[in-house]
């Protein structure tokens, strides 16, 4: 049996005794013309340009800036073409990061490839218990060009903490149920302290509550004691700083704001406060 193919048509001859392969081939190609001919849809044209982010995801710390690179390949562009990048907040908000220079100019030409870049700034704020916040970057194409655009770039912004003193940085976890869960909640505070001098003093401004021991003679019949448990305290040492991880536990039925102040040269006397909702640095009046 022989078969040959011409553009747009398949023909098969059938040798005596040969199986009906040609007819099956004809049917397999989505039908045959009344005259025995078939049409094959033309493959899509290649994209005029392909654009993609450099491989991610991107991890950036609050207060820092990351450079984001974009690679493009031009198959055929008769004229220069522009696309932009938009931000897609997920757990991060629009106020948590911003882009600069996020306009990508693709030159005209054939068989050209290149790179472009822009910056993403993770914006610092006064909250320090946010944990990682996520978002994405997406290409926004200009019209008129058949372009293949790469997948969104996932972005994770790490909480940079706050610095009530120049030599001190604080981050905290979100409040979690303690042990027992029906009594306590707790957060872990990570305090990074630069070595040198005596270092800052962390003052527990609040909460305090009254404790009533048995009255003995003329002794005072009430104390007000610090109303927290230091559940755990870990210290690690790095090249020029120490890092404390302090797990502070409070009762959840009489929860009060946790207020900390820090004392050393150039410390912000206002300190920090943790409510049930958030931990933030206070601003001095």
């Amino acid at each position, binding site marked *: 049996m022989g078969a040959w193919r011409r553009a747009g048509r398949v023909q098969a001859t059938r040798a005596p005794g040969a199986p009906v392969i040609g007819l099956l081939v004809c049917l397999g190609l989505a039908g045959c013309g009344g005259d025995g001919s078939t049409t094959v849809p033309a493959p899509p044209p290649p994209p005029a340009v392909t654009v993609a982010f450099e491989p991610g995801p991107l991890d950036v710390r609050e207060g820092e800036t990351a450079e984001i690179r974009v690679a493009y390949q031009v198959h055929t562009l008769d004229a220069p073409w522009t696309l932009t990048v938009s931000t897609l907040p997920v757990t991060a908000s629009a106020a948590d990061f911003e882009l600069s220079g996020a306009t990508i100019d693709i030159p005209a030409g054939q068989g050209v490839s290149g790179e472009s870049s822009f910056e993403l700034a993770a914006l610092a704020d006064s909250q320090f218990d946010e944990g990682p916040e996520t978002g994405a970057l997406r290409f926004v194409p200009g019209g008129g060009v058949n372009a293949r655009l790469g997948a969104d770039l996932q972005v994770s912004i790490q909480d940079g903490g706050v610095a009530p003193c120049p030599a*001190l940085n604080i981050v905290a976890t979100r409040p979690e149920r303690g042990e027992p869960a029906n*009594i306590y909640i707790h957060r872990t505070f990570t*305090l990074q*302290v630069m*070595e040198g*001098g*005596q*270092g*800052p*003093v*962390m*003052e*527990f*401004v609040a909460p*305090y*509550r*009254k*404790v*009533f*021991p*048995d*009255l*003995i*003679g003329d*002794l*005072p*019949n*009430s*104390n*007000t*004691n*610090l*109303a*927290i*448990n*230091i*559940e*755990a*305290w*870990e*210290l*690690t040492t790095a090249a020029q700083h*120490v890092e*404390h991880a*302090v797990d502070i*536990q*409070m*009762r959840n039925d009489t929860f009060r704001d946790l207020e900390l*102040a820090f*004392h050393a040269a150039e410390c912000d006397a206002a300190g920090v406060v943790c409510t049930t909702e958030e931990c933030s640095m206070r601003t001095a009046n």
Partner: protein
Amino acid sequence: MDAPGYRFFTASPDTLLPVAADAQRWAKSVWAPGEMLTWVVAGDPRWTSRLIDGPDEIIPFVAQALAAWAEIETADIRWKVSGVDTSLDDAETGDGRPTIFVDPEAERGSYARIVADWIAGEWVITDCDVPLSPFAAASLDSDIWWTYVLIHEFGHCLGLDHAGTFPRVDEGRDLHLRGAFGIDPLMSYGNYYGDLVSLAPDDRLGSSLLRPAARWRDSTGAVAGVVTIGDDPAAFVQVFAIPVSGGIAGGAVGSFTNEEGEFVLEGLDPGRYVLWTGPLNTLHAHGHLLAASPPPVIDATDQALLLPVTVTSGAVMDGTRIGAHRSRPERLANP
């Protein structure tokens, strides 16, 4: 060192809070270093309870309480209970024979009746008896609390005054409180419902400073400094050292400042410590300090130094200055 250390009874009438070298100790003629001190139980018929039918049956409880101190490896504490002395209904004060007995007139569950004599220019302990009230005696076998009380009173007999309690939310007797500070010292009026025979590090340190094991002090160091409030000394506030050398804190030890705000923490193992200051947490355990002049600062807030101090053996790390702040809610306000 002129600053006070641990809470010891003083050998001198001029010092309220002595360092270990100036603490009141047993007269060598009664209980010298390396020797055994023998306790007896008075043969009182009031030693009865649901399960106890006579003084012989409280011997194990007394032995257990004495052993809590005797097992401290860094201390030279050799004492035991020999048995019941049927010739005694109660203790004879000052006979040099430490005795446990039932005191029907005791207003409190128990106390340490310490006898000190003025010998060679200092006060020395020559006897110590521990009475129990009838209801305490009847509860020894049924409530572990009273064994804790015995351990506490025997600590007084060693020469230990009340330690400070750690800052924490007081949840009462039923919850097991540890955390970074560890259990409260048994010599405090705090929460110490932990392992019965494992005293807190603070108890072990204080007793070791009083009766040190051979060459133990050679391996230890100290931290000294001053706590102030503005330009004034912070008198009689607590200073705690939380050990963090191994990365994870466990078992703080404490001291008090004197009238000048000065403090020293002696007998520390070499390593790094986070220092914490704060006023007395259990005022009713420190009546003699409340009556002192100047009175203790009780309205300062708690605070921690964020750069740890490093202790080396044989050395005193001096010069630590801690500025406290009067921000705590009024301690003496009516509820």
